[in-house]
């Protein structure tokens, strides 16, 4: 199973394994990673699973669809060029080692 490292806003880090095919959002919730709300359950509706993808991984994560692009207009924390909704990043072996930073707030 590929690993993902979550960097918290306070600087601490946690690395967890997430099944191939599952989203980073889901992996975070089931692994008890704090800092992801995911109010809509992965429907790309609420923008509360916002993460910043480590620059080194930006060209490896799946491309953004228009829906996600537009929902990112509504994040509670600052939107940056590496902002993504973690419900839309599906894990695969190609993403083993992925690093994402959690924003200060989701709501």
């Amino acid at each position: 199973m590929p690993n993902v490292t979550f960097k918290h806003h306070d600087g601490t880090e946690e690395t967890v394994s997430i099944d191939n095919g599952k989203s980073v959002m889901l992996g975070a919730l089931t692994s008890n990673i704090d800092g992801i709300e995911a109010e809509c359950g992965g429907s790309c509706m609420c923008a509360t699973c916002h993460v910043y993808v480590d620059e080194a991984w930006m060209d490896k994560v799946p491309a953004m669809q228009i829906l996600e692009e537009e929902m990112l207009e509504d994040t509670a924390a600052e939107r940056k060029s590496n902002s993504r909704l973690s419900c839309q990043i599906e894990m695969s072996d190609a993403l083993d080692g992925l690093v994402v930073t959690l924003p200060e707030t989701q709501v």
Partner: protein
Amino acid sequence: MSADAGLVVIGASHAGHQIAVAARQAGYAEPIILLSDEDALPYQRPPLSKAYMMGKVDADGLIFRSREFFQDQDIDLRLGVSVAGIDREAKEVRCADGSVLPYTLLAIATGTRVRPLPVPGAHLDGVHYIRTLSDIDRIMAELEAVQNVVVIGGGFIGLEGAAALRQMGKEVAVVELADRFMARGVGVTVSSFFANHHREQGVDVYLQTGVSELTGEGGKVAGVSLSNGEVLKADLVIAGIGVIANQELAVEAGLDCDDGILVDENARTSDPSIFGAGDVTRFNSRFAPMSLRLESVQNATDQARAAGAAIAGAAKPYDSAPWFWSDQFDLKLQMTGITSGHDKEVMRGEPSAEGFSVFYFKGDTWLGTDTVNRPSDHISSRRLLDMGYALSAEEAADETLALKDVLKQARKAS
């Protein structure tokens, strides 16, 4: 035993679990007991009629939080516990198993239950509802042998179920009593667009049509008799004809109720020690002329946050614009505001899967917006409503004016 009996939350779905989590996040330090009458860890309901039914996510993929999360938050989650009564004098919750839980503060988030089909044959095998994980598991267990599905009720749930089953290759018919789909939630343009889209995808659409009887063979449903005399073949029937607020515990305890437990902007009931949140509550809102009982994730989540904040003594009143969504086939329908009672629709774009928006007005007053595959308009509308912005029909109709720029200007001005 702690001097303070703490908080007991009845119900652990979207609202209930969020009350517990929000109370902790807002600094509540007393014991919290979170009761669910289901056996599964608290889970997301929206994917049930969509991704879960289509096998795109499994049950693990529906949970809100791991069991460890509740432990870490010092939330005593108890599954499979039904509540029999509330004693407000003694400040105790009586469980069906005979146990008694004292409380200092109580929260009721018992949600709704499906309205049962009021026709002969409703008890037959193969007749289903969409509400809980086990409802969907029962449907999925039968699906392989199913060819013909009849969905009774053309509301959000019924249409999502119809779309999911059609995408799985089933023959699907939808029967709706009203003259259009989702009549309570959207305007005529959106209704007819969705009816056409379902037809194009091969769904048989019956409007202004009632169901008189379900017929069976050997105890299992085989047909649906319609008010027009037609009989539809059915191996599986799904009824989505609305829900009923689970307010009985509150009524019996003497709390003020009126098709929903009445709560204020801090989610407090008529008893200051008791809170309520989610589908089961009724409340006043600046977004509607009448009191509201909303069945939505947004309402459950935001109202539960207000309850959690008030429970922790850091009141943060619930005041956000209502929003809803529905996924059907390749269409994402997003709604914000309470638009019933509108007398004018203003369009952006033409009805097509490419995306369009409908702005609803009553007189000059903008009530809200429905968007189809146009999330940017949805988000901007939601935020403009939150701000109390008075969008004009001219602004709404002006395609050259990006709504997100209207929002930016409004934010600058405020």
